[in-house]
């Protein structure tokens, strides 16, 4: 069809507009495809590794090792597979620590991705990320823990996908902690104290009922963790779940914007070509021929946009997958481990939406009688809208009236400008808040609140008097079936300042309990509300009143005076399980675990680099989308008003004055939209955090500070400025003849 030529010529003539909408579409598809591919890859790898390498359903440690006969009896009684695994933590010369396991054959099977499994004494295989970050390579001989160890390969362990040292650790950092496997002999020859754990695997991946107490009667349990509560296993699953909403929401928003823009261009095109359409209809062109013709625009934008988006997205998913690989230790067990449905969805959904909505718009015009189309538009709809009849629109100087009327006439444009600015603002503020919250979280939690350096946990209850250190009792209880850490502390301790907006809440412990922010968010409670704690061992209940919520952003914690905690738990009055202190414990006797605050902070600092980069990426993204949307809109506005612009020029107005008349009209909308968006952004991120808190166990401080508002404002105004200057160039190009030409029609 010869008409097809008009499509390519129109697009060439308006390349800026069509490139803009196509770019938006590319961004939407690219974002969706890259994130989805990376996430489905992660999911697929996790599923395969979990299944084929027999990830544990639970593991436990007890005060005395269970003899083999006992294990066998338990296996038969509960229909589980149990396997004993010994391990030891050793320090490397690089100041990192390595947890070496003996190889297993039934549960948590190690997977060697490169090199070989250690077979001889002195050989080890370690996690690849750990090797990378510490500068180790296969074949190296490294000295660690008094051992000259030869690295024979890289290993993945199904129960250390998220490689954290303690269950309570928030961030994995392969430069300070890693895992590896070695032969049982090598392990036995190491100087440190060897630990033993029992790994369990079941068909259903559930912990059999009664197993826990059965074990506990044989030997007191120090730890019993199901895979569901195991952060090393669970965190990757939370990440997958959490990312899913991001994957769909953000691209869907951009897709929506881009489709709205295409429809706007389409409507404009149809408006401009009314007479042409009428003529073609009069000539005898069929509706479906014309429909096909006008859908051609959508096809071109849609195909180019989705295809480019797919290719770029697929490409981008590789570095994204690599990024995930540094967080989660999952081997690539198959070549194509992403979900191909992603590609289909990323291609089909935008295209179908775009085409069907364009079809609606086109059909509306095609429904119009050819005769109506042939007549100038003014004749058929010359009526003023009710808005234009408002008296305040018709008062004041000519300039004022002109600008106001322009605003009213282009309601749709104004609305989209509003939306575009809002979208960019929300994205930008999300970035800024996240950027700030990492610092705030570290500052408040590790500097303002935790005043100690080490937290030492004992493997049994202590009662011996401690002078300089702060003893406390810590135990796991439940509130409404959710696990909560109960802290029994000395209210006047100098090692823990329960701060809330600069105020110390320790004194209020006499009036009630103090809780952490995540707990407040999960239980939806605040000061004055009541909570009922349940002791998981004996079902004893204790109802307390919340005296305050401290700015503790990590963990579901309840703080009470130590004596009250001991009373509730049935411990002696002077009992404690742990101690906060400033020096590293001299002896490890009876010590179950030591938390080193500086290490935790260091790992936070190291991840904040990545966060900062993603924030930067997000801001660039926000600006890019803002520029595209605003430029598109102001461009259209110039185009639509070119007869008036030309007339102003003919009359002797300067370009500056004309652009003030036509373009700067939208400045108030941009400003208003920005300030309206701020509470939206803050509310949005708070909402997101609250829904994520159950999975992550931490909350980010989400306050908006004045400097964020200022920076955001500058960025948005810069975005608007860029769009304006781009559109001013178009305004300059409007010719003087335009005014004369139009009058002939």
């Amino acid at each position, binding site marked *: *069809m*010869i*008409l097809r*030529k*008009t499509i390519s*010529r*129109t697009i060439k*003539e308006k390349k800026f507009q069509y490139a803009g909408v196509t770019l938006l579409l590319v961004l939407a598809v690219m974002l969706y495809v890259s994130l989805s591919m990376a996430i489905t890859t992660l999911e697929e790898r996790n599923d395969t590794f979990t299944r084929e390498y027999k990830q544990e359903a639970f593991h436990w440690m007890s005060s005395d090792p269970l003899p083999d006969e006992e294990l066998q009896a338990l296996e038969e009684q509960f229909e589980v597979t149990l396997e004993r695994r010994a391990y030891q933590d050793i320090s490397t010369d690089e100041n990192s620590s390595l947890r070496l396991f003996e190889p297993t054959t039934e549960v948590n099977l190690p997977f060697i991705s490169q090199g070989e499994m250690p077979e001889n004494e002195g050989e080890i295989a370690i996690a690849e990320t750990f090797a990378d970050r510490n500068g180790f390579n296969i074949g190296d001989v490294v000295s660690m823990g008094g051992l000259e160890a030869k690295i024979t390969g890289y290993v993945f362990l199904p129960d250390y996908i998220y490689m954290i040292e303690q269950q309570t650790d928030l961030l994995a950092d392969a430069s300070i902690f890693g895992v590896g496997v070695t032969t049982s002999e090598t392990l036995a020859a190491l100087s440190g104290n060897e630990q033993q754990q029992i790994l369990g695997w079941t068909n259903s991946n559930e912990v059999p009922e009664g197993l826990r107490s059965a074990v506990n009667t044989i030997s007191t349990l120090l730890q019993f963790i199901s895979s569901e509560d195991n952060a090393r296993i669970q965190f990757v699953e939370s990440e997958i779940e959490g990312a899913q909403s991001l994957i769909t929401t953000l691209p869907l928003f951009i897709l929506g914007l881009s489709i709205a823009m295409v429809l706007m261009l389409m409507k404009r095109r149809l408006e401009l070509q009314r*007479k*042409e359409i*009428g*003529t*073609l*209809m*009069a*000539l*005898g*062109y*069929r*509706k479906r021929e014309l429909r096909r013709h006008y859908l051609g625009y959508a096809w071109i934008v849609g195909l180019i946009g989705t295809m480019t988006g797919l290719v770029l997205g697929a490409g981008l998913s590789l570095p994204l997958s690599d990024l995930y690989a540094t967080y989660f230790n999952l081997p690539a067990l198959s070549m194509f481990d992403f979900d191909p449905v992603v590609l289909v969805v990323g291609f089909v959904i935008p295209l179908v939406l775009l085409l069907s909505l364009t079809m609606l718009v086109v059909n509306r015009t095609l429904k119009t*009688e*050819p*005769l109506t189309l*042939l007549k100038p538009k003014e004749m058929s709809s010359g009526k003023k809208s009710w808005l234009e009849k408002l008296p305040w629109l018709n008062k004041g100087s000519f300039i004022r009236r002109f600008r106001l009327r322009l605003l009213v006439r282009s309601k749709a444009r104004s609305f989209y400008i509003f939306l575009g600015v809002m979208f960019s603002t929300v994205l930008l503020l999300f970035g800024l808040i996240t950027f700030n919250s990492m610092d705030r979280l570290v500052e408040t939690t590790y500097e303002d609140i935790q005043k100690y350096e080490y937290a030492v946990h004992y493997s049994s209850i202590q009662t011996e008097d401690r002078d300089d250190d702060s003893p406390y009792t810590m135990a796991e209880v439940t509130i409404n079936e959710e696990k909560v850490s109960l802290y029994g502390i000395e209210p006047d301790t100098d090692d823990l300042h329960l701060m809330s907006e600069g105020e110390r809440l320790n004194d209020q412990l006499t009036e009630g309990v103090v809780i952490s922010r995540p707990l407040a968010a999960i239980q939806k409670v605040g000061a004055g509300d009541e909570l009922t704690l349940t002791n998981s061992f004996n079902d004893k209940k204790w109802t307390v009143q919340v005296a305050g919520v401290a700015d503790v952003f990590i963990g579901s914690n309840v703080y009470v005076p130590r004596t009250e905690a001991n009373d509730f738990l049935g411990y002696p009055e002077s009992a404690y399980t742990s101690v906060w202190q400033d020096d590293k414990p001299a002896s490890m006797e009876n010590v179950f675990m030591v938390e080193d605050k500086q290490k935790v902070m260091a790992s936070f600092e190291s991840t904040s680099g990545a966060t900062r980069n993603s924030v930067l990426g997000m801001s660039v993204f926000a600006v890019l989308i803002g520029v595209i949307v605003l430029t598109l809109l102001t461009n259209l506005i110039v185009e639509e008003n070119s007869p008036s612009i030309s007339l102003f020029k003919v009359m002797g107005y300067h370009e500056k004055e004309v652009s003030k008349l036509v373009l700067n009209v939208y400045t108030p909308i941009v400003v208003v939209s920005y300030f309206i968006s701020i509470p939206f952004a803050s509310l949005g991120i708070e909402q997101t955090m609250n829904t994520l808190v159950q999975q992550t166990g931490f909350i980010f401080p989400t306050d908006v500070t004045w400097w964020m508002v200022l920076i955001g404002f500058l960025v948005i105004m810069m975005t608007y400025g860029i769009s304006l200057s781009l559109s001013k160039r178009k305004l300059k190009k409007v010719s003087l003849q335009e005014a004369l030409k139009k009058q002939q*029609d």
Partner: protein
Amino acid sequence: MTIVVERVNKVYQSGEVDIHALREASLNVPDNKIVTILGPSGSGKSTLLNVIGGIDRFDGGSVRVAGQSLENLKDGQLTEFRRTYAGFIFQQYNLIPTLTVEENVEVGKELSQNPLDMKDTLEKVGMWDKKDKFPYQLSGGEQQRVAIARALIKNPTFLLCDEPTGALDEETGKNILRLLKYVNETYGTTVLIITHNQGIGDMAHKVIRMSSGEIVEEYENENPIEPEKVTWA
């Protein structure tokens, strides 16, 4: 007879008042002839032409064109009717600005199963040397020639021309009239010309005069004059 119109009415509801654009209009147009419809502005000429061309509906009466009763046709059938039989020429030419002269004519050519030859047609309207120009590079008269070629190339049974010279000066206008006469003589196409320019009536085989939606006069010219001799108003 190519076109037979019988007691056709057309009422526009415009706010509170009804406008009778056509009142019991009847006429017939013999085959292969040039017919002009004269009348002052607002007398219903365009309405009548649009009814005949199948781009407007009417209220009562019957219109038979090329053997088809238009009142019985559905929208899709009307499209097919126009596609096959009608050629439209507008006062404002209505060319597609993004297509060249040849491509604009191609738009008409695609509608026909057995169209005329492109080169031949463009030569006949005198636009072959400018076939690669875009509409904005042409004068009004040249654009109207292209519009005529676009209508002509699908070899229609009749040409419907609504004020074809309305936007043109005398010399250019007469050239267009000359071209329409040439088309009528060469291809035997029935040509219906609407105009408020009284003089043009003298070149037609038949003249129909309208006033306030009614046909007030209908006569045949024994000896139509040459377009050059038309008195220009």
